[in-house]
């Protein structure tokens, strides 16, 4: 089984990295960039793996629910 976890900073939370990259892109011939938000992707390969457990791990280990949201996609 393959799983893909995307972890993004919550909308309300400041994303300093996104701000810095937005400014860099504007200086870089894309003046019309409005906003950039930067998160993590994790590509996970499992023997079989159970989805419920994966969700727990996304919450407890792979993301920080206080400031981030996660999204889990599994393909068998």
């Amino acid at each position, binding site marked *: 089984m393959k799983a893909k976890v995307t972890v993004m900073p919550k909308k309300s939370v400041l994303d300093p*990295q996104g701000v*810095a990259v937005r400014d*860099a892109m504007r200086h870089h011939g894309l003046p019309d960039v409005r906003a950039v938000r930067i998160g993590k992707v994790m590509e996970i390969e499992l023997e079989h793996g159970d989805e419920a457990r994966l969700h727990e791990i996304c919450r407890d280990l792979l993301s920080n629910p206080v400031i981030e949201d996660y999204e889990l996609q599994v393909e068998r």
Partner: protein
Amino acid sequence: MKAAVIRFPGSNCDQDCYHVLKNGFGLDTEYVWHKEGSVEQFDMIVLPGGFSYGDYLRCGAIARYSPVMRSVAAEAERGKLVLGICNGFQILCEARLLPGALIRNRSLHFICEHVHTRLENMETAFSHAEVTKSGGKLLTARTGLLLHMPIAHGEGNYTADAETLREINRNKQVVLRYADDHGAITGGANPNGSAENIAGITNRAGNVFGLMPHPERACDPLLGSEDGKLIFQSVIESAKKAAK
């Protein structure tokens, strides 16, 4: 004979480098703001350590596009001496002025400590000199010499593909490797997981040098080491020769 210390937003070893060059070596030294167009008028260029642009995206990735970097690249092309320390090394790799890349430390932790590095090539413009330590002791460059300097980085793990590694070895571009206190290049002496314990390399032409250790933090007996002087003395002598 004039030295430039480039200031990127987020550079934080700029003042330390400036102090060593200006007060330690009595060199005519100037800060150059990253928005400036040109470093043509300088004989040597130092890219100091720090967190340019907060290390956001990748260390050095954004700084590499600062206006001043065009001129730095052009001057490097013309053979001018460029020294990149820590974040400066990362910027030079991002700018493709040096081969390879520096990624996250194996331990994932930021590491600040004194390390031993072994001098692998004493023929470069950055590693050939002899300096007198306070108290009169001589420190003379020779292959195998151990230099004691601090590291302080979270992304100092040097990587390059096999072909690049073969090439930089073949061309003697590797100047420093992490070593144990007997000079052995061991896994245990490798603080960050760098390929082949690489701590510092030059470009093919030998006029651009990047290293993760901080020589500017090792130029004063009060700080526990003066070994960094050897690096600065070398590049200053080389720059003086070139300037003539």
